[in-house]
């Protein structure tokens, strides 16, 4: 029975975590939030029947699109039949013809018209301008959402020009909203486009600590008025509040925020914490959050080093030694020479034939611990110069963490580093 309720609670929280609209609704109530600002701008251009353009800028995972969706949803409720939304994505529609086609398609769906797949891009462009005029006459605002705005600024920017140029006429009524994670997105625009663009920008920043705290409560606390048993909900919530107040928990979140404080990173952390929940007891514990932190903050290079075989470690230590010797560039042959010289002077037991070493070398390339430094295509692996992709400190730590690593290797690396 406990398991059933715990499962139900888990599904509820996971649904919240996978729904960005729910997550960002917590930030919508304060008057100086981006939500309120954006809503004001868009709604004023709807009511005053004017053209407008705005850029939403900020790092990835700060809720630009989610907030925009919330605003548009609200406005669609407030002003039904006065807004139609056209959504484009730079990843999908950065080609002008493709974008025009998509605009025409969405306009057709919106206004229940027949869409012709065969229409040329010229037809589509004319259709769009005509529709803009029609909508303007009917006092209907068309909202263009351009996600990954920086990608639209590649090439000739014909689409942006024709969109913004159409907005210069009195009869049209449209809002162009660009969304980008490049803060210099408006600098990418051509002069003719830039002059037609209003330089309104909204900056989305990662939330502050107290905001994150609010977010935590917003996501983790179970609603009292749900189908879940009342006792369970109160118990669950009190335990969560205890954890949130715990000093150790605050340490964990601080560690997380130090590396990346965007909401999406935080949500990922919560998701993996929540999925660790133990169905037998049915409650979350501090351990869940601890293990989530370690899964989110992985160090892939160190993991790789931990998996390396002894021979692969030998090769990397040889490369490091060559680097310390200030050899400008080196390749497999020079690594082999170093490998042999180590063997000659220390009589190690790990001596393998050249073919075997070459394959180990290829494994390292596969693992992306080393990389070719040149772009030679018709050369052989043996002769192409390579470089290490890990720092000496990482290599050192990797050697330490590898259980079967021979002591001689660590010594070789240490004496080598000491000489410089």
């Amino acid at each position, binding site marked *: 029975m406990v398991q059933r309720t715990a499962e139900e609670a888990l599904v509820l929280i996971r649904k919240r975590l996978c729904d960005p609209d729910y997550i960002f609704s917590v930030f919508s109530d304060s008057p100086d939030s981006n939500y309120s600002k954006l809503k004001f701008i868009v709604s004023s251009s709807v009511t005053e029947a004017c053209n407008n353009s705005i850029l939403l800028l900020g790092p990835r995972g700060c809720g630009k699109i989610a907030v925009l969706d919330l605003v548009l949803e609200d406005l669609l409720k407030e002003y039904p039949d006065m807004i139609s939304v056209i959504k484009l994505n730079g990843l999908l529609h950065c080609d002008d013809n493709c974008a025009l086609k998509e605009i025409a398609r969405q306009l057709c769906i919106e206004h229940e018209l027949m869409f012709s797949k065969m229409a040329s891009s010229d037809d589509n462009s004319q259709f769009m301008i005509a529709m803009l005029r029609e909508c303007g006459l009917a006092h209907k605002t068309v909202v263009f959402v351009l996600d990954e705005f920086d990608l639209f600024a590649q090439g000739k920017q014909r689409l942006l020009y024709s969109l913004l140029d159409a907005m210069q006429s009195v009869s049209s009524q449209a809002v162009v909203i660009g969304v980008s994670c490049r803060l210099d997105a408006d600098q990418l625009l051509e002069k003719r486009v830039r002059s037609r663009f209003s330089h309104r920008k909204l900056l989305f920043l990662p939330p502050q600590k107290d905001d994150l705290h609010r977010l935590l409560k917003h996501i983790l606390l179970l609603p009292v008025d749900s189908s879940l048993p009342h006792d369970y909900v109160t118990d669950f919530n009190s335990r969560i509040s205890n954890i949130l107040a715990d000093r150790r928990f605050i340490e964990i979140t601080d560690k997380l925020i130090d590396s990346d404080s965007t909401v999406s990173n935080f949500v990922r952390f919560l998701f*993996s914490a929540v999925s660790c929940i133990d169905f037998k007891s049915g409650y979350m514990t501090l351990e869940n959050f601890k293990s989530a932190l370690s899964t989110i903050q992985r160090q892939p290079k160190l993991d790789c080093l931990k998996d390396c075989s002894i021979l692969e470690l030998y090769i990397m230590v040889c490369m490091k030694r060559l680097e310390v010797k200030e050899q400008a560039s080196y390749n497999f042959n020079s690594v082999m020479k170093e490998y042999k010289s180590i063997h000659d002077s220390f009589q190690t037991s790990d001596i393998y034939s050249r073919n075997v070493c070459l394959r180990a070398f290829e494994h390292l390339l596969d693992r992306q611990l080393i990389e070719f430094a040149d772009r030679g295509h018709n050369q052989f692996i043996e002769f192409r110069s390579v470089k290490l992709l890990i720092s000496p400190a990482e290599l050192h730590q990797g050697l330490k963490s590898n259980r079967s690593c021979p002591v001689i290797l660590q010594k070789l690396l240490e004496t080598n580093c000491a000489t410089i």
Partner: protein
Amino acid sequence: MSTEESPHVTRRTTRLSSSYTPNAIESAAKSINLPSLTLRDLVFGKEETLTLEGLISSLPGRRNQILEILRLLGPVNSPVSPLFVYGGVSTGKTSTILQVFRHLNRPFVYSSCRTCYSARQLFDNILNQLLLHRKSEINDYSSAKKCEKQADFINLLKEALVGVVDGLKGNMGKSSRSKKSEGCVNGSMVYLIFDSLELVRVWDKSATILPLLFKLHDILKVPDLGLIFISSSSLDTYHWDTGFVDPIPVYFPDYTEEGLKQIFMRNQSNSKLLSTFLDVVLKPFCRVTRRLDELSTALSPLFKKYCEPLDDLDDIPDEETRRQLFTCLQPHIGPALNEIFRVTSEPSVEAGIKNNLKRKNPLKKFGNDSIDDIDFHMSTSAKYLLISAFLASRNPATLDASFFDSTGGSANQKKKRKASEKSRDLKEASEQEQFMKGPGTFPLERLLAIFQCLTSSEEYSLEEDEDSQEKMSLGGDFGENSLMSDILLQVSSLCSANFLTKGGSCPLEGSTRYRSTVSEDLALKVARSLKFPLSKYLYRR
């Protein structure tokens, strides 16, 4: 990929193999009668589902990973963030994911970026599976939907996904009413699995496809969609200028020795014997590689060797025989270690071992050059060409005269002087350069000149019973066009066999330059087969 994965990865073929009939005419009639695919076909196979214990025991050494994935996927009908499953080659990523879905009995769409080698193929494959479309003779083996652009794909995918999810929800409603859940699909979530994602990085247009795949969840906005990416390299090797929101990583470490042993012991008859064998052998081999696929090819011939002295394989070896077996095996381990990665015909390995055993110092010899004969056929003139190309690549062009002129042959010895400090430094530097640069390039004329020199000096030593054609082409008159073209033909066939590579043309002369790609070992072998004193002509610094 690895041997243990192969039975599971071929899901599509096993699904189709049920329709296979040997008679071609009959099959045409049969294929029309094939039942159309249903939503039921989106789950793993038709076999009965796995229990959790069965799942964990079927994949030794992957217990933690299985539990982690199960936790992240969550209970039925719970939405999931995109997962990124990564780990080295042959660590059981694909089979674990597929077996987990077999256990969960949830619908999924598996597409590997290896078999779907371009974006279009990938899109078609996903849509075909989602739309329950089967390529057959009736539809001329065409795909369900044509989609060339990513924008079209997203629209079609969304349509298809919504259709499938609605279908699943409808099914669920029905089955819960009729209480007949058996053989039914679990839940209304659909999972898209992308395998070998690391290959997408080298596709053309990868700059837009990768971020698209990673953002699929946000773009589609279908809550009933789960995304799972399987890749052999970690997330930090996926570069894109403006980045993407990372999926949740799940790491598959390489198997430990313990795990490897368990995998090798699976489904084996004489497990006691194998276990004693593995105890001896695994440790040295793991120092070189822990990759399952490579280990299994290296160990299977060694195990045969191990079993050879035994009469009855079912015997449980006692301490004494164990020691005997070990002493028998001991000398074979060393050479086998050096053969791990070599793909070679069985007898040559054996010969190598025997030779090494004769010399009684199998490990001291660095490299295995004891295989004297080359294992491919080549005409004598081609062998000479190969050698001359090798010489042209290794020797500096300025020394050709002193090596090959009948008058200047002795000049070589005169040059020997006592090496001063400075010259030794120079020597080291040039050696370094040789290391870095690899074999040099040469024009065709130089190759032909060296070839003529070699063959004219060797012509008398050629055996008498060789046919006149060859003699003429080797030692004879090169002015004749037909023979010259024969040599040129040999050069081009050496090129296509990758013994020579055509490099870029020389900026001054404008002619194509060649480069010899054979290693010194191979060149020496070829020279030995001709009884040609190669080392006499090779310039050593």
